[in-house]
């Protein structure tokens, strides 16, 4: 009743990718059960694939199958718009992202909390437009821009821009700026101003 060694690679993939895929699917779908089903679907499809065909791209393949399935499910539920929304071109990196994020007026509770950067950015991440959030989610799971491009069916250049916009929006958030300046130490640039320090005189 044990899977033969020939299938060890599938079980290895389960060990390695189950958790990242679940996190990814959960973020796409906002539903634990659906996410678990989606991930299981991907692995069961994997069982049908010859190993050699996926040599070196198991991760992309799994994420992509997961994503397609999730998109189907979102579409079925009439919710796919956000994920598939074309990123608006508006490339004003200084103004746009910050405006899109909450807490411009710095929620006092949050400001007082100021616990740690990691928590703040991961909370803010949830508020980014879906394509940016997805790109950063995937990157955080250890996937390269190239892999992300394969998974999401976007060009690598597009992925690069999406990641950049997302990160810029996070950076520009006042709380994040404050925390970053703490990281840099007191000698660094003033943190909470909306005008980041310009080039050397």
């Amino acid at each position, binding site marked *: 009743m044990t899977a033969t060694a020939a299938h060890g690679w599938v079980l290895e993939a389960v060990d390695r990718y189950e958790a990242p895929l679940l996190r990814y699917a959960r973020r796409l779908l906002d539903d*634990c059960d659906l996410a*678990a089903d989606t991930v*299981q679907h991907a692995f069961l499809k994997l069982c049908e694939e010859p190993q050699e065909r996926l040599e070196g791209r198991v991760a992309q393949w799994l994420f992509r199958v997961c994503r397609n399935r999730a998109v189907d499910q979102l579409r079925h539920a009439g919710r796919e718009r956000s994920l598939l929304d074309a990123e608006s071109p508006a490339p004003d990196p200084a103004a746009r992202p910050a405006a899109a994020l909450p807490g411009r007026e710095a929620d006092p509770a949050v400001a007082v909390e100021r616990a740690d950067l990691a928590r703040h950015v991961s909370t803010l991440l949830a508020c980014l437009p879906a394509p940016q959030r997805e790109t950063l989610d995937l990157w955080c799971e250890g996937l390269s821009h190239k892999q992300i491009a394969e998974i999401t069916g976007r060009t690598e250049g597009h992925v690069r821009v999406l990641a950049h916009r997302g990160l810029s929006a996070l950076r520009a958030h006042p709380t994040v700026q404050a925390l970053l300046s703490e990281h840099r130490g007191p000698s660094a640039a003033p943190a909470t101003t909306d005008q980041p320090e310009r080039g050397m005189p």
Partner: protein
Amino acid sequence: MTRDTTNAFGSLDGEERDALLSAYALGELEGAERDAVEQLLADPAATDARQLVAETRAVAAALRQARAGEPPTRSADLRRAVVAALTTTPGASAPRPASRPARGRLSGWLPLAGALAATLLVAVTLSQTAMYREVAHLSKNAPRAEARPPVLSPAMPRNAVPAPERFVVPEPAPTMGRAVGNANKPSAEAGGLHADRVRRLAPPRGPIDRPEAAEWESRDRYARFDENRFLAVADRPLSTFSIDVDTASYAVVRRFLAAGRLPPADAVRIEEFVNYFRYSYPQPAGNEPFAVSLEAADCPWHSGHRLVRIGIAGREIDRRERPAGNLVFLIDVSGSMNQPDKLPLVKQALAMLVEQLTENDRVAIVTYAGDAGLKLPPTSGDEKRTILDAIDGLVAGGSTHGSAGITLAYEQAREEFISGGANRVILCTDGDLNVGITSDTALVELIKEKAREGTFLTVLGFGQGNLQDEKMEKLADNGNGVYAYVDGAREARKVLVEQLTGSTITIAKDVKIQVEFNPAQVTSYRLLGYENRRLADADFRDDTKDAGEIGAGHTVTALYEIVPAGGDAPAAGAEPLKYQAEQPRAAESAAQGPASRELLTVKLRFKQPEGTESVLREFPLADQGGRFAEASADTRFAAAVAAFGMILRASESKGEATLPMVADIASAALGADEGGYRAEFLDLVRKAESLRAREPR
């Protein structure tokens, strides 16, 4: 960007250039691009480029750090399903002739394997032995790859890539304004101290523009209730309530948050939140049906206060040792059940349950309100094929024949009555209770009578829009059974598989809790949640007053926030103050012996499942003065869940509780987290945090 950077990047526009810098910071560049960026960064004038890279790195590292801090989620089911899928592929299990190229052979089987895999998607719980039998069956009857395999699980479309119709439930778009219980509605407390069980309906999940969705919404009610307040021990030394193992509120709020909305305050019921989770409390010794464990620690949201956790663990009954089950499913197959979260989910739930059955069990299936009748006569639990085929054959809709419904179900139960076993009729419906007896009174009478004879009624609610929560709970109550709302695959598993023994075996009934506080140690106290489960102190000893049942393996948790005697200072171990007004009383009780050091005593009354007289158990708690961080993971997690509920309710009692605090406490208290429920909780907290951040202030 400064003008001097343009040179290094030729014609790139501002954003493309910055994107390149970001990509560099993420370590995504190689070759010429990387060289170009490094060259730029070496330029002393490129301060802002360096700042961009440094900040991007810091933010990216923080993101990854946050991700790494998330608990790993694993599911035993996935592995099992994958192994099963692999082992049912002939190439994987049977030795094959060496001369035959594996690829060719495998590919011949692929469509079949695919279909099987698809099937597995639902029937993952089918035991592997059964799966083997399945394969044997397949190879006999369907040797050709294009032949259609039998569908083990009825919920599944029969192609290899199933359409996602199964669990896809349109997300809720509850409109808070309307969902909030209106002020005209009588308060849940209006009925007096005894639990006035005003039930809540789940929020509508259909897209809001669908007419029936609007209809659902209008029926949606969250009974308004006032939170428990601090009560002075001097006036009210006793606190009495009925146990509650309902968890619906948590599922409801999860739906709200998933839809990107904060729930209305009255949808949040603290005790149902806390009891949604499993806690690993110590099991009872000997034949006791319960163990009670108590713990006191600092209250995380109010310094100076103490938090007391009462944990009750119902004796677990090993599934293999559980009494034989005589289960008759009474299934609503009316047209309205023909929705992904109704009949298909019922069928899926049943398929999961079948796995747990043995030859000692009997299963029968009766349908009503559609294509009605006896679909499966009582069948031994090891004839899984027969049972699964019958489940597979269930179809919603069709004409309504005269339906014997519930009478037929009880007849089946009586035919196979197992003395000493779990004899149950399990009603699965979305709210159509036209089970063949039209008079409510007659129906309740029948259910009561059957319960007296030893056949209990469990009610499982599916879907919504029509769910008659209150009535369904009433039926289950009269039938000595459980009422549960099943909103998805996970809930189905929880109710039917994980708690199989729990929801079919009641180990004690009319379970009441009374806490007596020691005025020498406690000034005032507040029970978190259980507002609608409060009982009059006198009802504790009154065996004619009903209370909640508890099933095998259930845990029940209650939390008290306590103001220790002597003001806001922690009382634990502190000597009574010499000149305080309380001093004489404290001295007096100290003279009475060790009891004075006790914070409180938990008294538990319950009846054996067949009993009519209650039994009393007492459990004293002496506060050891433990700090919150040193409390057990279960206590810390329960506290986080309660705090989350209070924050969502915008409770006046939430003290210093904040969502980040909840996330911090919970993430440090995940424990083994079987099933990933606690990780899901963390996700919900983060979701709420981001939603609140978005709210105008």
